[in-house]
């Protein structure tokens, strides 16, 4: 029988996790506010809001629109830039005894490499390459993660620069996500994050205008969960590296679905905005389930769909 929290411990591409429930990038900022709600030492790990080389002000408002069971956002990577992060955000994050994965985005390959170099330091447990943000201007109108070659080339370049575990966050806005996932794996990614938000739109019919200042945004929340589960299920069969699954996880049952589909860990995102304590309920729920079922470790359930 599983006892304590040991039943939830797992390894994720070189990162030791006490449990497989992480906080997703962009949904808890840099922990300052949310740490007043949740004991962050309880969570499996933290993936920071994306950092860019230069500070970014973000997109013009309105930045949010709610849709049935979903949330459209077009925040636009508002962040203090790498120098501001290292000076004023990272020291606070390092108070917590959990792996800190820093999400980064550059305007080109060189910027990603430079960010990786600046983050090769004590306390950073890994890097997440955000190559799938739907809310920033892109060269030729495409995200890096919409192109196999670009994904390979970028991942390769950062891989050469850093010895830190490398997470690559993929976009669902592609025809064949497994092909992109394989490119990242071949280029040296240690872990995949599946997925960033789905491109979407909402319109105010009274004003006959888009609800978002940026017109188009990224959809998250329970509305996308079945779509992401499919992606995790398929990609898990195509790659050997572990997957962090995310998309609409509100309760422990949702997290378990992702693990059964093949994810090694999950990330809770939109739910943090509704109640910062949900993540603790999810961890407790998973533990309770393992104990009730007499399962020694959560890894036994990974890709554990019955025939």
């Amino acid at each position, binding site marked *: 029988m599983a006892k304590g929290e040991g039943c939830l411990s797992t390894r994720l591409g070189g990162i030791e996790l006490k449990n497989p429930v992480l906080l997703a990038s962009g949904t808890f900022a840099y922990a300052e506010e949310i740490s*007043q709600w949740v004991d962050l030492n309880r969570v499996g790990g933290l993936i920071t809001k994306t950092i860019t080389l230069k500070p970014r002000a973000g997109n013009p408002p*309105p930045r949010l629109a709610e849709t049935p069971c979903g949330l459209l956002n077009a925040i636009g990577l508002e962040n203090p830039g790498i120098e501001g992060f290292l000076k004023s955000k990272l020291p606070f994050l390092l108070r917590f005894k959990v792996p800190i994965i820093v999400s980064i985005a550059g305007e080109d390959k060189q910027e990603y490499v430079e960010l990786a170099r600046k983050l090769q330091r004590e306390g950073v447990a890994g890097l997440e390459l955000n190559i799938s943000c739907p809310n920033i201007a892109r060269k030729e109108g495409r995200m890096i993660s919409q192109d196999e070659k670009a994904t390979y080339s970028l991942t390769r370049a950062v891989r050469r620069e850093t010895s830190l575990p490398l997470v690559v966050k993929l976009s669902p806005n592609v025809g064949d996500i497994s092909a992109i996932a394989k490119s990242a794996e071949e280029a040296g990614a240690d872990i995949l994050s599946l997925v960033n938000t789905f491109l979407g739109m909402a319109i105010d019919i009274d004003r006959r205008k888009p609800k978002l200042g940026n017109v188009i945004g990224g959809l998250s929340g*329970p509305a996308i969960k079945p779509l992401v589960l499919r992606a995790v299920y398929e990609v898990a069969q195509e790659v050997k590296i572990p997957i962090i699954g995310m998309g609409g996880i509100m309760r422990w049952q949702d997290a378990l679905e992702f693990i059964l589909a093949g994810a090694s860990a999950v990330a809770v995102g939109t739910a943090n905005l*509704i109640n910062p304590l949900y993540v603790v309920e999810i961890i407790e729920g998973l533990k309770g389930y393992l104990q009730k079922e007499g399962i020694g470790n959560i890894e036994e359930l990974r890709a554990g769909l019955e025939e």
Partner: protein
Amino acid sequence: MEGRNLLHKLRVVSNLRVSPGYFKMVLFAPRIAQSAYPGQFIYLLVENTCFPLLRRAFSVHRVREEKGEIEILCKIRGEGTKLLSRKREGEEIEAIGPLGRGFECFSREDYQAVVLVGGGVGIAPLVFLGERIKNRKGMKVLVLIGAKRREEVLCVKDFQDLGYKVEVATEDGSQGRKALVSELLAEHLANAEVCAYNVVYSSGPLPMLKEVARISGEYRLSSYVCVEQKMGCGIGVCRGCAIGVIDKQGRRGYKRVCRDGPVFEGGEIDWTYV
């Protein structure tokens, strides 16, 4: 973990329609009643399901400290507010609050001649403010209420009961003057003797607040505006409720309505895109 002290289960004491499409909900909320100040809001989880997904924000409209009750004044706008309008006495609603920076300056003793300008349901927090400044010595308060039409003119009696002079403007002329409430403000300030007022507190739609801030600025009056913006987390994390601001050096940026606001100095907001 002080955040957790802001999480409550609130019992509905009453929920009544005040005019077509508007309702007033009384909630038993002793801790909020004790700690909230005007301009702060509470963030209600409409249902414990994923629809509606996000919480809904409401300014604290009135506080009855002795009973441990607070009131919110709501307009039915979509599914979330429609479901809230159907809550019955005795039902519980999960809430976070009080949140945000309200009219922090309301207790300033030197603000003795005050204009309150409210538009539509945005008037809600100004009643709470009006109650809190009521017994101040030598206080003079003028209340200007604006709405599209008669049915949307709210809280006139609340302010009259406080002993304040109230004037109403409607866009269609169905009650009070046929004018914008900002036009009433401009007339009052133009006709007033020098320094007749020293501060304008306002709450309502952004275009109205823009005018109020501009007119107040012309008369070199301090103005404080309570703005509304679609919010995500309500606690300053997600950066979803950004509003453009401009600092004294003319530098533009964004602030968070939920945490840095919802009350801002009128001159602080970048009104260019409103």
